[in-house]
């Protein structure tokens, strides 16, 4: 048993980490025990934990009711986090719009978060920000209306997607300012119109 002061300090340190993901706490504590970093806590230790006040740190406040993914500097943060080296933990996420403002911020966060193990980026063009990161896979995708078996095979097992693909309502007109574009599109529209008329006639 450790001296009382030391125990208190330890329990406070444990509590200063606000992330509690539940689940494998006990298992991870025993991992730390094996690595010789801390002793296996006694039942008295847990009592002192339950009674001590919870400090609130503003910089690393957890998202209310969310499983969180941020990295923490405290070495004890591993108690509440899956051990990425020993368990078969995986977190595969999809990202679109990675070359935009929001998308590049999300990509930076995903790349720098160890608990995210695999990132699939659907993009029309290469993503320079993802280069040199083995956990990021850029899938060049041209038509975001269609997802064939090949693409879906690569995305299989993904937990979720951040859909940051978009365009400013004021910017979208720019490609159409060129006269040649307008003409070609008008031509396409006429074609479509003719086809629609033909369909109507066929139905009748």
């Amino acid at each position, binding site marked *: 048993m450790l001296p009382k002061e030391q125990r208190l300090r330890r329990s406070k340190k444990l509590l200063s980490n606000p992330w509690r993901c539940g689940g494998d706490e006990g298992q991870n504590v025993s991992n730390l025990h094996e690595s010789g970093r801390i002793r296996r806590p006694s039942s008295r230790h847990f009592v002192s934990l339950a009674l001590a006040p919870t400090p609130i740190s503003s910089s690393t406040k957890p998202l209310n009711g*969310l499983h969180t993914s941020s990295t923490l500097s405290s070495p004890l943060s591993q108690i509440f986090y899956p051990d990425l080296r020993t368990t078969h933990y995986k977190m595969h996420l999809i990202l679109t719009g990675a070359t935009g403002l929001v998308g590049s911020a999300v990509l930076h966060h995903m790349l720098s978060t160890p608990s995210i193990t695999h990132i699939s980026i659907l993009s029309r063009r290469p993503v*320079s920000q993802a280069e040199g990161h083995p956990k990021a896979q850029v899938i060049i995708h041209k038509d975001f209306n269609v997802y064939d078996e090949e693409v879906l095979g690569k995305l299989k097992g993904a937990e*979720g997607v951040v859909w940051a693909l978009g365009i400013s309502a004021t910017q979208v007109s720019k490609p159409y300012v060129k006269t040649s574009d307008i003409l070609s599109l008008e031509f396409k529209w006429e074609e479509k119109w003719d086809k629609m008329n033909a369909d109507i006639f066929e139905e009748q």
Partner: protein
Amino acid sequence: MLIFLRNSEYEKITYEYPIAAAKAFATLNSPKPFKFVYVSGEGTTTTPGMFTPFFGVVKGRAEAALLCLSKEPGYELFKPYSLRPGGVDPTYHPEIKEFIPVKQGLAKKGEELLVPLLRKVYPGMISPTKDLARVLTDLAAGDGEPLEGKGVDGEGRTIANVGMRRLAGI
């Protein structure tokens, strides 16, 4: 004619693409839920009025369609969220400076003036990219359950900028 083209292109990117993807992705994580986090925008509404901006109408329709999709048979595992950022502010995110698109002309001027002003006067309208990115990622990685509290609406699946800031702890 121009307006028609403009609108159709905007709708294709803002509405059709995410819905098509949602349908294709819904069962990727089967038998576990799949979370779809749609980046919408402040000013969006699912009940547009006379003064709703055009982007707000289209994005609102996309939000509503994603919610409806999650209630359709066969989409039990599909868990959508829509997050509406305010003024996206990369000032305190120097790591992404070299990768973000450069704005030009009026948009650049407007941003240079507006964002620092809003940050001082009305910080609730600002979305710092670091916090925004963290909340978006955590929603996609989370359990997919509805959220609660201030700034959360639409069956716990639509998060206003105020809600995003609260979740991020700022």
